[in-house]
């Protein structure tokens, strides 16, 4: 009787579909996955430590490098934590602009998700279409802050500068295009039989499993738990806007795709409402140049594009934070990779990985 053995396949860190430098250790029985162990740290830059070595205001651009696909959301999260710690009141107009930027960036990030999911499924054309439309958002950001990546636009106390006069018009133009391109994605991808069969029922997680892994963001919403910090905490000016939290039913990859796909429309709704209600006024709070928050600690969380983005900052009363810890949603969501891969095939592992939508800059921090 011939004996068969399981074998280990090292996927990554150089692999076309690991979205950067993740390494996954797959234990395989033929094509079936018995165990998947993500191995991290290839992109570790010590951002937490870097933040501790700088003043509070100097730390903002470092957060750009965490989740570089949605930098605005990271800026937003960090600045909220510092403001809470130092007790800075942010002007209303700045809050509105922040929400606009964060939601636009959420759309851009979800477009990257859809594109890379299609690419990992072998349909590389999908990627080009989503990236083409994402370009319009980047152009808007370019208009606002001169950068297309790592924006450093949302700052402690407000935003870097006021919106240029033509922004509102251009932004509305983009928002009018949203139904157009979402319909195009739906037409090109969602109706495809192969696409559906590759995603439906694959990498299923129950709500209990997702909770046990402390998953957040679209990943937990796909299992049917409507946990969205924008609704739960109602931070910033989010309670003033009407939007829905899309949830899935089965917790499979199809639902993860659907949740993000529908979030694009919801985010566009928020941006439109924010543009309509945009008040006049200053965009930067007044606070001393050398910010020295009182002794104490704060944990502030926002809804990043990938889940609950938390910043825990301890102040010892000096100009630099004593300790910064970042709760990175990608990192924590990655823990579920094993449960999502176990029992499925090699081809599914790539899709499962893509469906979690982790960003290695954020995972390794």
């Amino acid at each position, binding site marked *: 009787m011939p004996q068969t053995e399981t*074998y280990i*396949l090292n996927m990554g860190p150089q*692999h*076309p*579909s690991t979205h950067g430098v993740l390494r996954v250790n797959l234990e395989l029985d033929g*094509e079936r996955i018995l165990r998947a162990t993500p191995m991290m740290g290839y992109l570790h830059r010590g951002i937490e430590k870097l933040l501790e070595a700088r003043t509070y205001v100097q730390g903002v651009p470092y957060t750009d490098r965490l989740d570089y696909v949605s930098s605005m959301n990271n800026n937003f999260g960090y600045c909220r934590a510092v403001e809470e710690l130092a007790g800075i009141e942010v002007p209303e107009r700045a809050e509105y602009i922040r929400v606009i930027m964060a939601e636009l960036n959420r759309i851009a990030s979800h477009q990257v998700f859809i594109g890379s999911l*299609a*690419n*990992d*499924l*072998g*349909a*590389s*054309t*999908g990627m*080009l*279409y989503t990236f*083409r439309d994402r370009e319009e958002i980047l152009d808007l950001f370019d208009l606002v802050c001169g950068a297309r990546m790592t924006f450093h636009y949302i700052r402690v106390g407000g935003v870097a500068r006021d919106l240029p006069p033509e922004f509102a018009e251009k932004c509305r133009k983009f928002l009018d295009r949203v139904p157009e391109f979402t319909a195009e994605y739906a037409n090109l991808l969602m109706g*495809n039989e*192969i*696409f559906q*069969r*590759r995603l439906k029922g694959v990498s299923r997680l129950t709500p209990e499993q997702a909770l046990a892994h402390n998953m957040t963001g679209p990943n937990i919403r796909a299992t049917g738990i409507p946990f969205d910090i924008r609704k739960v905490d109602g931070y910033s000016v989010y309670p003033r806007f009407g939007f829905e939290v899309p949830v899935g039913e089965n917790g499979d990859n199809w639902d993860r795709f659907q949740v993000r796909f529908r979030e694009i429309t919801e985010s566009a709704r928020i941006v439109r409402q924010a543009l309509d209600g945009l008040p006049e006024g200053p965009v930067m709070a007044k606070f001393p140049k050398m910010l020295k928050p009182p002794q104490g600690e704060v944990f502030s969380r926002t809804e990043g594009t990938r889940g609950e983005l938390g910043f825990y900052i301890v102040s010892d009363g000096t100009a630099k934070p004593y300790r910064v810890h970042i709760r990175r949603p990608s990192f924590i969501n990655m823990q579920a990779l094993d449960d999502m891969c176990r029992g499925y*095939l*090699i*081809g*599914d*592992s*790539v899709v499962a990985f893509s469906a979690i939508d982790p960003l290695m800059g954020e995972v390794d921090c």
Partner: protein
Amino acid sequence: MNAMLENGVVATVAGVLREYLMLLFGNQFLTDLIMKFIGIGAVIGVILSAAIVFTYAERKVCAFIQVRLGPNRVGGRFGLLQPFADMLKLMSKEDIIPAGCDRVVWALSPMLLFVPSALAYAFFPFDKGAVFADVNVGVFLLIAISSQAVLPFLMGGYASNSKYAMIGGMRTVAQMLSYEAPMVFSLLGIVMLTGSLKMSDIVAVQADNVWFVLLQPVAFVIFVITATAETNRTPFDLVEGESEIVAGAFAEYSGMRWALFFLAEYANLLAVSILTTTFFLGGWSGPVLPGVVWFWLKALFMVFFFMWLRWTLPRTRIDQMLSLSWKVLLPLALANVMCTGIGVYIYRWL
């Protein structure tokens, strides 16, 4: 001119050449031998120029589908010299031999892969009377030869001493075994209608009556699906599976060795397009234009069709692909054979 249309352009040219050579050498055997070599040269020439044209075409078609421009730097605005630049790049690349590989098997694999893909061209009726080897078991021999391609893939996968390559090699075996069966049965209907395994007869029957795509639509669909699997292109590019197993069996190859795989892939692409043309689209038959023009028009349309599929569809999973060919395509093909048989019987009875 009329004679040319009557007998086909290629056959007429070949006839003139033969007469000229006969005058020159005055020896029947020598003339035949030289004519054979000219034929081989022509077929290899077709394959090589196809590889050049298709690298360019693939880039441009892909770019068109992906709302891009494609190559537009090398050789003018349309990047016409891109394939030559690609070729130069491949030739100047270092030949990396992975550690611990089985050198002989490893080196043989790309060469052996090219052999069956090139050999298949011997049976293609490019024009009326222009078949290199018009054997009376053409279809059978063709399928037998093309299924040899599984071995070099497995050899390359095994010899590379890489797990990705090994998975790719094993996938090739699974895939080829499962799609060849429905492919053969889908062609059986045509053989029954023609009453011959000769390639030239199959085209001749279509030229006299109707294209088989009208008589055998189900077989046509099955054949096109399995042909996509034969060329290892999306949605059945599981052997290559770029986003999963990187490049499968040829993950460890570089430079000219890789170029041979590449060449074989394009030779295969053209081969299945020609097969589809020959079996279902009437080969060289068509009004007004000479047969060879019709032949290439149809074949190149099929090439475009396969490129179109590749750049639009996602990849299936290996188990889905296997269950599709065993559980759906094979029964369908068998049912098609039965229906054709009954149809032929009734037709004769009438």
